[in-house]
């Protein structure tokens, strides 16, 4: 993703920012999927990255084993992920709705373990390459090289974000889902099936996560652990943006992407220290501005 540019340091800097935007877009979409679930039921889904990993493996299998064209595989994967998300909510999460934070953390970690193990069982632990849908090469613009791949990732992410926004803002189902998460009791009285709204929330979240997995997969290699750092950066993005704010997740994702790209270039050993940097950002945000950039501050009732 990083293309080296000789010469002008300002140009080199801008170049890094641009390539940070692409990975930032991936973090943003996974962060958005985390925030969707967090808003609906106050769970930080630790299995989100593994679910996206599994979706990406499904796309991989559709393309390499069954020889589907990329676009069809892409669409099918999103549909399957939606169904999988709904199924997971109905079977694994539903019995624990309203449990303590610790219980929910444990359940999502159990899910993490199961999904990871299943992927390992089916596809093994050998690294695989996932071909990029975007052409090789780059656009030359004002002395900057912007890869088609980066442009493609940013474009697809923007489309996904727009779709999610339109869905929640302008459709009746989206309205019902927002109502169900904000005022579950009132919604139920008005005939909204809140349980199913939660399940749909998981479905949409899994679908958005699947897109993030399929976008990053050509850049990194595919193995059952490949989404774990992405999940961490998505968490960092969500915390930075305010864990309840979808807009914050997107802004946070982009910021984290750019920050990590700069870190990798300008700090020696920065590649190894990326995750430690994520830890530092999480802790710093929580200490300085716990609500994040776009969140409301937490009110505790006694």
């Amino acid at each position: 993703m990083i293309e080296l540019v000789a010469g002008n340091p300002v140009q080199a800097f801008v170049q890094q920012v641009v390539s940070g935007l692409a990975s930032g877009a991936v973090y943003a979409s996974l962060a958005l999927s985390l925030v969707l679930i967090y808003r609906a039921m106050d769970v930080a889904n630790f299995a989100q990255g593994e679910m996206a990993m599994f979706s990406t493996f499904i796309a991989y299998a559709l393309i390499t084993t069954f020889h589907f064209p990329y676009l069809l595989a892409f669409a099918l994967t999103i549909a399957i992920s939606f169904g999988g998300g709904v199924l997971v909510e109905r079977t694994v999460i539903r019995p624990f709705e309203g449990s303590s934070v610790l219980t929910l953390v444990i359940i999502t970690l159990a899910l993490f373990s199961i999904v990871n193990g299943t992927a390992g069982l089916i596809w093994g632990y050998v690294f695989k390459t996932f071909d990029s849908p975007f052409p090789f090469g780059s656009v030359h613009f004002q002395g900057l090289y912007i890869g088609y791949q980066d442009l493609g990732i940013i474009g697809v992410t923007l489309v996904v974000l727009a779709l999610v926004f339109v869905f929640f803002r302008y459709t009746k189902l989206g309205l019902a889902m927002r109502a169900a998460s904000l005022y579950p009791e009132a919604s139920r009285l008005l005939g909204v099936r809140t349980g199913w709204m939660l399940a749909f929330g998981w479905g949409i979240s899994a679908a958005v996560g699947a897109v993030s997995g399929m976008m990053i997969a050509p850049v990194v290699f595919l193995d059952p652990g490949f989404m774990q750092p992405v999940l961490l950066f998505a968490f960092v993005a969500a915390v930075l943006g305010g864990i309840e704010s979808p807009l914050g997740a997107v802004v946070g994702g982009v910021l984290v992407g750019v920050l990590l790209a700069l870190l990798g270039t300008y700090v020696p050993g920065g590649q190894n220290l990326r995750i430690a940097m994520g830890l530092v950002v999480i802790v710093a945000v929580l200490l300085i501005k716990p609500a994040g950039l776009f969140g409301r501050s937490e009110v505790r009732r006694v």
Partner: protein
Amino acid sequence: MNARVAGLPVYSLVLAIAGLVVFIGIPLTTNSFQTFQFANVAAFVIAILGLNILTGYSGQISLGNGAFMAVGGYTTALLAAKWPLPFIGFVPYGLTIPLAGVVAALLGFLIGIPALRLRGIYLALATFALALAVTPVLNNYDGFTGGHAGVFLKSARPPFGLDLSNDQWLYLMCWAIAAILYVPAFLMLRSRTGRAWMAIRDSETAAVSSGISLAYYKTLAFAISAFYAGIAGSLFVINNAYVDPDSYSLALSLTLLIGLVIGGLANVWGPILGAVLVVWLPYFAEKSAGIRLGPISLGGKPDIEFGIVLILIVFFAPNGLAGLIGRGIRWYRSKRDAGRGAAPEPVPAVLKEATQGGEPSEIIT
């Protein structure tokens, strides 16, 4: 059943003797690999006990205790095999164990300070990041830690010319340390400190308004938890005579949490059951790799089994295996007492024994 020998109920004596027989029997009857595995069980007991203090009793979710184990493990490895101290040379294994605990405790204390401001899910996120950060950080400073290649140690030999195999000695040493470390944990949890931790877990607001200092007790819980994790990490390194950064992946921290939850959160005996499970379940999962369902062979890596057991435990037995056993004992006693007809109404076992001054049938937490 109320017969007593030397003031103790007979059944607890029988249990103690049975426990001792099993303890001594294991290294005598099993092969060296199995003995070695049981030594690892002891190290896991210590690590999970530490996590229990932090997560089970104090309610601070930690997904990052593997990081404290890493600090303990590397303290031992670097002092005993990589960096000789001036004038002293390489530090003997035995001395590095308490040092590993102390260094880890220091890190735990430092982590506990920002953690004061983090509650619930945020603490889980931060410690998750901590768990993921360990391996790349260790790799990054490879000049100091040895990096990917790891550090090799000489295998520990029994001292004083004891006629034991290496594995038998490791087994004895690890279990002796586990037993010693159980005592302060046991006492702390029953003291003012333990009650303060549990008060914080159940309601921080209520705890603060009763005059409990959150800052003091939370950082204390982190430091002590890290101390136990550090010792456990040190013992692992001594057992394996090798350490590398990949030993401290996210999987290790998750394994600790899995062991804790399956054994029994906030139960003193939970860590023992949990440790046995996390060491031996992978072994049996590997053995069952021959079982095939169509094109898919079951087993190999135990992640799926762990996940399923975890969900089942949280759903059916939130107090873990130890809680389940406790419930079984109580059920048996109430049956037995009712069947005797001595008491027209079954008296709860706890009350009954309280009036007779016997062993409490349940660990009240």
